[in-house]
């Protein structure tokens, strides 16, 4: 079994697990039951998505996906923070 094959299969599996994790988060987003659950789901979706990007970069051996992952890492929380604040205050910015 060559290293390439191990990497290919292993990372493929990791990616599949992460997308499964995304699907689970998506399930929570859809099921709710309450808005906070959905926001939580979205936040998880973002984090898992970011990890999936990293693994995809590994699979393809490319550094070009870093920026996207980095942006999610540093800015991805904005959407969920705004949602959470809306939930808390009924207004995003006052």
């Amino acid at each position, binding site marked *: 079994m060559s290293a390439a094959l191990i990497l290919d299969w292993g990372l*493929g599996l990791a*990616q*599949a697990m*992460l*997308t*499964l994790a*995304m*699907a689970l*988060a*998506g*399930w929570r*987003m*859809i099921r*709710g039951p309450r*808005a906070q659950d*959905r*926001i939580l*789901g*979205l936040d998880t*979706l*973002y984090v898992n*998505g970011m990890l*999936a*990007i990293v693994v*995809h970069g590994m699979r393809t051996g490319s550094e*070009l*996906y870093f*920026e*996207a992952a*980095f*942006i*999610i890492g*540093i*800015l*991805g929380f*904005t*959407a969920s*923070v*705004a*949602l959470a*604040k*809306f*939930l*808390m*205050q*009924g*207004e*995003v*910015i*006052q």
Partner: protein
Amino acid sequence: MPPHLLLVSAALLPFLGSAAVIALPGHARNAAAALAGFVTLAGLACIVLLYPQATGGEPVVAAMDWLPSLGVRLVLRLDALSWIFAVLVLGIGALVVLYARYYMAAADPVPRLFCYFLAFVGAMLGLVLSGNLIQLVVFWEMTSVVSFLLIGYWSDNASARDGARMAVTITAAGGLCLLVGMVLLGQIAGSYELDTVLGAGEAIRKSPLYLPTLVLILAGALTKSAQFPFHIWLPRAMAAPTPISAYLHSATMVKAGIFLMIRFWPVLSGTESWYWIVGTAGMATMLVGAWSAIFQHDLKGLLAYSTISHLGLITLLLGLGSPLAVVAAIFHTVNHATFKASLFMAAGIIDHETGTRDMRRLSGLWRAMPYTATLAMVAAAAMAGVPLLNGFLSKEMFLAEAVDSTGAHPINTALPFFATVASAFTVLYSLRFIRQTFFGPPARDLPHAPHEPARWMRIPIEALVLVCIAIGLVPNLTIGPILAGAARSVLGDRTPDYDLAIWHGFNAPLAMSVLALAGGVALYRIFGRRIDTNPRGGPWLLDRFDGGHLFERAMTGLVLGARRLETILGTERLQPQLRLIFLAALLAATATGIGRGVDLFLQGRTTAFDPAFAMLWLTGAACALGAAERAKYHRLSAVILLGGAGLVSCLTFLWLSAPDLAVTQILVEIVTTVMLLLGLRWLPKRDEAIPAPLSERARARRRRLIDLGIAVLAGSGLAGLSYAVMTRPPVEGISRWFVEEAYPKAGGRNVVNVLLVDFRAFDTLGEICVLGVVGLTVFALLRRFRPAPDSLERPAQQVRFDAIDRAREGREPGHTASDALLVPRTVITWLSPFIVLLALHLFLRGHDLPGGGFAAGIALTIAFMLQYLARGAEWVEERLRIRPITWIGLGLLVSVLAGAMSWPFSHPFLTAAFAYWEAPVLGKVPLASALIFDLGIMILVVGSSVLMLVALAHQSLRRTRAAESEAERAAAREPA
């Protein structure tokens, strides 16, 4: 002066005069009249001077190019026929000017009247002098338009407005048909030049297009000359000042239709269709007009219907198809113009001096104005066809034609009878006009005490009556040669022999004349009393079918029908519009696909399936469907789910080798989510529990089903199309070139970015303009934003937070919220520099790696947004001076200047330059002008998106401020 110059002067003078007279002050009655009179007389002189040439065989011609590619020239062409009409136009015109000077009140803005009048004279002249079919149409329509203005001269008068509207509607409509007819005629003849067309009669009558051409041209002619059933506009046009009625609606404009039929008689007549259409229309018009005239109480009304009847008579003559009838038609046209114009003027004098035109109120005017009465009686006698007057001569010719034309046609058989009846009617109403107005006991309670008019006001009538008598007595010395010339210019070799003598011996026409005179007198004796008072108002038998009413009703019906149709065929509601658009798209795509036999599942190539990707899209699809399902009642959930779908499409871009897209998508996604949330606050509460009205529910369900169908079909269509294209082998297109040349020629490794800032930088320039424009629009809109009353109050959450704080000692409202934001605030504060760093990174590396000005700008925007989110607008703006509009402007300027930097180097706009600078320590530093362009983009993006966010965010602030100032005001009021 050469003939063609005379001709041009005659044609131009009225227009010049028209322009000059409007420049006079509104009260300059004398000056205006003098100018108008001079113009008409000068024109008349020109035309009169041209008499020898006009009757000399070859017409006088002056021509000028107008639309050469269409074969349309402006040709003035004067032959004997047009000479007669031109003299009528100018001669009666001059008399009308004189008359109008005294008729019009001092308060009337007379220059305007004369302005229109002279324009009309010019249009009429242009019409009769046309040597080109299209030019004829041009002046034809001009007469309609100017007559509209003239009829509506007293625009404060409702009937003037109505009359003007009806006249222009009917005559201009006819003119539109005429245009098409003339185009067809020219097409058949191969030229629009009158001479050529007149020479192509045989070809025209044989053409398959003859019938439509004829119908269209006659539609013009019959509407203009007020033939049944289009005659209805003429009585209503009598709302015009009387001089105008005398001129337009008896002497000239209505004769335009007659002129047209005479002019084209050689090429259009002689067929069954001509005979039927023209003959029937003429006969019907003659009888209906005469019958209606009998019952009018208004002097002008009587004359108007009489005019209609006489126009019908002339039309009937033209319809008969014999050359002699044409001569009679021309002759009667002239005669009618003279006696009818003088009658109108007489009626005008009566109106002017007594204040009424109602024959029921008028009586015994003979005593008060014997001179006018005499003139009117002579003219009326001419109208009635009394011997020794001109009307008698032409009527004799008509009756002779009626007797002679005994063909197989039923019209011919009945013609002598109807001709006699119509003549008898004419006698009847002429008699009534004279008797009821001038005889009988003197009228009481007239608005003014009647007396003879001003001396000058009678002169035009005298002149016209003189003409009536002169022609009637010595036709061969007066009208003879002119008539002969005109007949020859129309009929050419077919000109018949005729005799204009007063006495032809005892023959059938004479018998009919006598019968008509006697019959008319007898009828008046029998029915006179009842007709004179006629309480029913309208003509017997016909008063149920008032064309004017029918027209108005039709117009109203048309408008209402159009409104109905507008709502049936169109909609102002958005949903049906969008539904239609999607349906049309479905239809267009499906029809093309089926028509071309498109197979969506050819499968030329596929990429290896990855279950992870499928899993990803399971999430994405679920999010999309969830968002669609929840968008009505659970907006926040829908926004959340939309974010999920956005993230999935971002990951898809990444997966499929588009990191730039992923970066942009995720950034835009974040900003969009925040914006939607900012908007959410101002939307009304929506509750699932509130049921829709029962009646609505079934309809709504059906609509939803249809929409679902459209959505599913369109979605499947788009899926199918994308599948089909993706699985086909790639096309050898332009893309390879970009990949090969991006680095060597544009110095960038990230081909997508190079495309954006260099190869297709023009797109990007446009794109940032969109962004800038939208930013400004949003700003403008939100500056005037007024929230709906039900979303004015603070969100319940904030009220509750404040309540908690108020309930506890030592806490001010806002503390709890502030505590909740403590950690976010700190994190966001210290994160900000790193976001700026990220933006810098994205910006600088964009040319070689994913990123670029747009991504950097959005990242900066998010940094701003986070500050607003954590601290509130007031806090941020105390510390940061934000001038987004300046940034937008700056961004635009920087990008444009970056593009124009290439101009000094003789390169086109946006030509990028790049170089490697060998810096001392740093080594090779890439310098690309595209970076400056990208900088402009970044500045603009920050400006625009910050502007949008801030403008949205400020709404809450404004609301708070408004509430505060309200509270302050309330507080200030209390102690007082």
